[in-house]
């Protein structure tokens, strides 16, 4: 396999096969079908096959297409800061904390600024969890304080001080005019000013969050969509152990 030139794969190497589906806000007609093919062509698709076109009622229609694209990428040339993480399981995490850390790990979670989207935050910390995994609240060795939505960064700082938090988890969904970068940086700076930054593990998450964003805003880690509670919990344990080693 030449990782210098990777293309989508259907059933033959380098065939570039892809499938897409989408809706149009018009009924199916000869013209709408041509429109769909035109959209696909402008996206760079070749050998376009429209395999399904169907009215969905109320003047909406649905299309499924197959085709090929003539795009290849060089995997070697791609540099992504990856959080490479050895995953522990639920029991290992609790055991490790019990052994390596004299008390429960105190976690604060919040969405900050005007952001009211708590789905991601809840997926990670509420007992309900995500993807069949329990959230951090379910771990006996984590003590979790969910501050909820739209918390001002100042309040997060104040609260961290009050309850001696070890971990601060912040979720940001709204990205209009990069408001998420502003909020995250502000929180990191405020914690720095209060001399709390080094005592804390600072984690952000959200649909547009990644390791790069974390780096830029002064966080220890940034998790994107599809992250499970176990990944976050494992990261916390790794980080705690790393910091303990450093002290010694």
């Amino acid at each position, binding site marked *: 396999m030449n990782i210098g030139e990777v293309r989508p794969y259907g059933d033959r190497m380098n065939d570039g096969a892809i499938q897409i589906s989408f809706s149009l806000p018009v009924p199916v007609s000869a013209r709408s079908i041509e429109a769909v093919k035109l959209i696909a062509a402008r996206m760079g698709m070749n050998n376009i096959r429209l395999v399904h076109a169907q009215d*969905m009622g109320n003047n909406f229609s649905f299309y499924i297409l197959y085709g090929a694209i003539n795009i290849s990428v060089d995997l070697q040339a791609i540099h992504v800061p990856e959080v490479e993480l050895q995953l522990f399981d639920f029991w290992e995490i609790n055991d490790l904390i019990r052994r390596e850390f004299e008390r429960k790990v105190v976690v604060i979670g919040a969405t900050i600024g005007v952001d009211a989207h708590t789905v991601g935050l809840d997926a990670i910390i509420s007992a309900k969890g995500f*993807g*069949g995994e329990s959230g951090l609240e379910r771990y006996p060795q984590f003590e979790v304080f969910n501050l909820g939505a739209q918390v001002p960064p100042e309040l997060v700082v104040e609260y961290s001080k009050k309850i001696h938090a070890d971990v601060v988890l912040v979720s940001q969904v709204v990205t209009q005019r990069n408001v998420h970068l502003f909020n995250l940086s502000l929180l990191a700076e405020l914690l720095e000013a209060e001399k709390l930054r080094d005592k804390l593990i600072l984690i952000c998450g959200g649909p547009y969050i990644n390791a790069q964003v974390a780096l830029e805003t002064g966080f220890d880690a940034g998790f994107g969509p599809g992250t499970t509670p176990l990944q976050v919990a494992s990261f916390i344990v790794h980080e705690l152990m790393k910091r303990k080693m450093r002290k010694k």
Partner: protein
Amino acid sequence: MKLNISQEQANACRQIAKEVALEIQRDIAPLSTVSVERAILRLLGIEGEKEKIPYVNILVDNLKEQKALEEGVLYWIANACLNTGLSPQDVALKVVSGSFNPVHLSRKSFQEVKNKAEELATESLSRLYKKKKAREALKQSFPPSLPPLLYVIVATGNIYDDIAQAKTAAEQGADCVAVIRSTAQSLLDYIPEGITTEGFGGTFATQANYRLMRQALDEVAQKVSRYIYQVNYCSGLCMAEIAVLAILEGLDIMVNDAFYGILFRDLNMYRTMVDQHFSRYLLGLFDIIITTGEDNLIKTVDAFKEYSIVLVSQFINEQLAQQAGMKKELIGLGHAAELDPKIPDSLLWELTQAQLVRQLFPRSPVKFMPPTRYKTGNIFFAHALDTIFNLVAVWTDQRIVLLGMPTEALHTPYVQDRFLSLESALHIRNASRSFSRELQFIRNGQADKRACELLTQAMETLIKIREAGIWNALSRGVFSQIKREKRGGRGYEGVFKKGKFYLNPFLDKKIVMQARRRAV
């Protein structure tokens, strides 16, 4: 299709649940809440807002500050009507604008005030019963689908986009459309007003939004010749008030659970119990179906090992609703297919559990919820899971089926997501319609065994709850290990003890009968 379970054991569960519900009833009987009082004001037809604060909140807060709330709002409104000859709405306007203080008016004799309050209540109810008649007529001209009713959600945050999605869904075969509420509306201690086009993960529940959606669904009903049920959420700190909006605007189904707010929104348990009682009482008067939220109980725990908590909650929810005067046909108990699909025979267990619920509550319009926990982005596998879920739903003859979405956990449904789900559900509803009558479990096979075990576990938990007392049980984490303090949680400050002149003639059977007769 029947599971071989012990009817005696089922009856015993019901009896214990009844005792638990009676304990709740006994303890909340002397209490009212700010939300119940605001609901009464709304029943009287009081509406409007000043500087974004609804009149009903201003009035209740005003009485609370003057330490006069224990008589109940109706006492003061009736007394003010007697003094001034004004209607309740005009009294509200005068109080809000500061023209007079209801507490400073001369106090008429209790009997006079009581008579006036009863007159106001009768007028309000008969006006609402007239509205109900018009809705029933529409339902007769466009009969709804036969069950299972297919239930979908819309959640754009903008009521106009919601309407476009809802109408499209109805044309695609949906029978019930629920508008998801904006994140955390359940924590607001007031109901926002007006048409809204911005919400977070949903659309604000307001009277104006209810009205717009109702018009749209009635329009599309004529187009598809099928009545479309409008669904919303009667939960949170404004549970009782929302029930009134549902009645005013002709909604058909309200999500309403006695425990959900306590467990998952950290609302105070006394506040929630008082509010659920009055909200269910009102919804029952106007034949609005409630659906309960047991699906949430198994989203947080091992759904196979702890499934019986669903039954426990259903037994108690049923009794509480009945004590609020609801008939069984209106109590839509909730349950869900949330087992890990990797468990061997998971489909057999889902089928068993779904059948067990149907069999224990044969008159309930049970609401069956789709898998969500094991959907993480593979839309194709999610669609396969949903299709199997639909099969279980039709096979066990569920009444209301909330359709799963291939894009669960990714984004609020796109128009094609809902379309694909409905296409699958319509296919299954047609293709396996007679399964429940034609197929049978092997007697005393694995399914029967599992059903008996679940019922036994449910009974054991119910006994534990009865012994501890419900309030203690809640603080010890009987439900999905979530512990709540008796005086903790949001909204406790809005609970108060009724005074000796407290009036609520809406609860009076005679008044209700009178209003019904007057509406004919």
